């Protein structure tokens, strides 16, 4: 079984999605058939998660080599292989994906009224494709999964989204596609230089500095849009606001991580000199993201937009951690920086997913995301308020929650590089607390603001389960990050070594 674990993680959800589509849609969301579909979706996603635990238990934390490798020729004529494998960078992200998807299925349970089969099918297929991106070790296979993944998300936002969903989803697809097309050109160039699409071949291939710079820029465009980095970030607030809750959760929790993953899997090892050359720019952009976006988040009136901007700021930390590698005098700081970035990715996935789910809970009841329409929710929904405050604190980086671990590691590492980096990075602690806590204060605390709030019902069992599981996860990673960090350690050391070498 472990021989084909990765393939299972990719194709099982996709098969489940196809089965759901074949079962046909029923617009009567309460019918027995619709119910059966939901249980099928849940069963498939939970089964996938259970299989992914095998990635953790079977993982060898002492080696940086690829594990669970599968390799078979796919398109022999152009030397493309179906080549899968995970290491300390991808395994946690795959587990995060399979963990979040069942929660999203539960969250969308009876909220989705129109075409539920297509909704759940889209998420399952999306999950399979995302697992594919994280496991692919052949450049073209990576690209195929990378682009294909946009289609289900495009449909999710466009069909089940809010009022401006068409604008938001077209912006999302076209913007991301524009970024990725140049990555394809870079891939083909590397293919012609090395003769294959094998990522490891590319990592070993000697490349001149000029070529490396261009390839880095091509990769940068694709990944920067995905992360998203300032200034190519404006698609994210629109996409998050207009997407249905489940869509926002997957978008924030997983899809943003693809950008960060792309940097560590592709940019750093394949074009280390190019990355080194542009590291200063990347650090500057990351810090701008942290500070600029922090200020912008402060003034948002729509809760989802606020959390979206806060996501961008948190991802700024991720890219900061990855690119301070070359500014270190010693080696240990570099590893810490990348580790911090990776932990931040996992933690942010959990926290922002949870925050979007919280906003979704409120939206399901009052059908508004505006802060002004709420006030004193703690009076009528105390259990929910407790969860929301917990996740908000985690978002602000409270020690004990997962939000703190990644931020702390990155700030310490960036201090070793340059105290000014740490200074600007640490402003997130102030700004993050400012915008999150201000939102919490206006929404949760105070007097009951209007009759909508007065009529609120507290969490039902389904919502409680979802938020409860996420709360446990956030606290677990925050209090005991060791299993996560151990998984990544050796791989990151190897990565830092690769990033430090000169290839021309």
């Amino acid at each position, binding site marked *: 079984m472990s021989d084909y674990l990765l393939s299972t993680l990719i194709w099982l959800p996709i098969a489940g999605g196809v089965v759901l589509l074949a079962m046909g849609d029923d617009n009567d969301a309460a019918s027995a058939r619709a119910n059966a579909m939901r249980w099928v979706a849940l069963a498939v996603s939970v089964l996938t998660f259970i299989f992914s635990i095998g990635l953790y238990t079977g993982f060898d934390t002492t080696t940086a080599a690829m594990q669970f490798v599968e390799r078979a020729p796919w398109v022999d004529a152009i030397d493309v292989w179906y080549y899968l494998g995970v290491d300390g960078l991808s395994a946690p992200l795959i587990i995060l994906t399979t963990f979040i998807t069942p929660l999203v299925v539960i969250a969308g349970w009876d909220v989705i009224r129109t075409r539920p089969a297509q909704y759940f099918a889209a998420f399952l297929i999306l999950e399979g494709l995302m697992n594919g991106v994280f496991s692919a070790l052949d450049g073209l296979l990576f690209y195929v999964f990378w682009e294909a993944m946009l289609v289900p998300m495009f449909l999710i936002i466009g069909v089940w989204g809010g009022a401006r969903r068409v604008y938001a989803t077209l912006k999302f697809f076209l913007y991301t596609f524009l970024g990725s097309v140049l990555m394809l050109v870079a891939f083909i160039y590397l293919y012609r230089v090395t003769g294959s699409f094998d990522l490891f071949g590319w990592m070993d291939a000697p490349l001149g500095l000029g070529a490396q710079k261009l390839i880095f820029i091509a990769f940068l465009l694709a990944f920067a849009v995905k992360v998203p980095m300032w*200034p190519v970030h404006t698609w994210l607030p629109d996409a998050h606001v207009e997407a249905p809750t489940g869509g926002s959760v997957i978008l924030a929790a997983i899809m943003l991580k693809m950008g960060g993953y792309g940097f560590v899997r592709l940019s750093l090892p394949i074009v280390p000199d190019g990355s080194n050359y542009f590291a200063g720019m990347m650090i500057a952009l990351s810090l701008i993201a942290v500070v600029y976006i922090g*200020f912008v*988040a*402060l003034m948002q009136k729509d809760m989802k937009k606020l959390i979206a901007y806060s996501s961008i700021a948190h991802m700024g930390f991720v890219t900061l951690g990855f690119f301070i590698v070359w500014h270190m005098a010693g080696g240990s700081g570099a590893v810490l920086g990348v580790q911090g970035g990776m932990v931040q990715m996992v933690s942010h996935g959990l926290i922002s997913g949870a925050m979007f789910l919280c906003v979704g809970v409120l939206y399901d009841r009052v059908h508004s995301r505006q802060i002004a329409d709420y006030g004193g929710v703690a009076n009528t929904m105390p259990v929910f308020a407790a969860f929301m405050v917990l996740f908000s604190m985690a978002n602000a980086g409270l020690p004990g929650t997962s939000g703190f671990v990644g931020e702390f590691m990155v700030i310490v590492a960036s201090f070793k590089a340059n105290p000014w980096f740490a200074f600007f990075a640490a402003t997130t602690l102030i700004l993050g607390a400012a915008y999150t806590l201000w939102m919490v204060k206006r929404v949760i605390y105070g007097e009951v603001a209007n009759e909508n709030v007065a009529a609120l019902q507290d969490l039902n069992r389904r919502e409680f389960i979802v938020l409860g599981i996420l709360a446990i996860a956030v606290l677990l990673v925050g209090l005991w990050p060791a299993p996560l960090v151990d998984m990544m350690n050796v791989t990151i050391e190897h990565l830092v070594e690769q990033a430090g070498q000169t290839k021309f």
Partner: protein
Amino acid sequence: MDRETRSHLHETPWVVTLPLVMLAIPSLLIGWFTVEPVLFGGFFGDSIVVDQGRDVLARMGEHWHGPMALFLHAWQTPVFWLAIAGLVTAWFLYLKRPDLPAAVREKADGLYNLLDRKYYFDDLYIKGFAAWGRNIGTFLWKRGDQFFIDGVLVNGTANSVGKLAGVMRHLQSGYLYTYAFAMIIGLTMFLGWLIWFR
């Protein structure tokens, strides 16, 4: 105070009074017994490690003569009398002559406000930093993100392409002679290029 407020004042229940007593009396005495072991003894053991040249407490310990000496010395320090003066002033202003505080406030208005408003630090934070932060946030959001990045760069390019499409489609005039003419022009360009550049 009026009767209404007075009626709200009552002695605390024993659940509160008893712990207060249990805390108050030892708090008077505990310093006597703990000051030497904690500050100059080995109470903390190896938990706190102080660098050799920076051991401030050790220097202080050279002048330590026991709690009784500390107690007796206190009467000679100005700090002690300053604290007593505070006590006396408070008794005077609020028990002996309760009319005075209002007069002081009238005479030294500015000083009163300065102290009442905590050296205006709250105003600095709320109207200064926080408002400044909010203004920057609004500026960066409206002018930076919404107007420039989204409006000019993103939507601007998209709209430009759309407008260009709207203009270019008129090339397809619908008239046959236009189409034929385009072909002739194309051919002429070919021939011209061949003659002059090859």
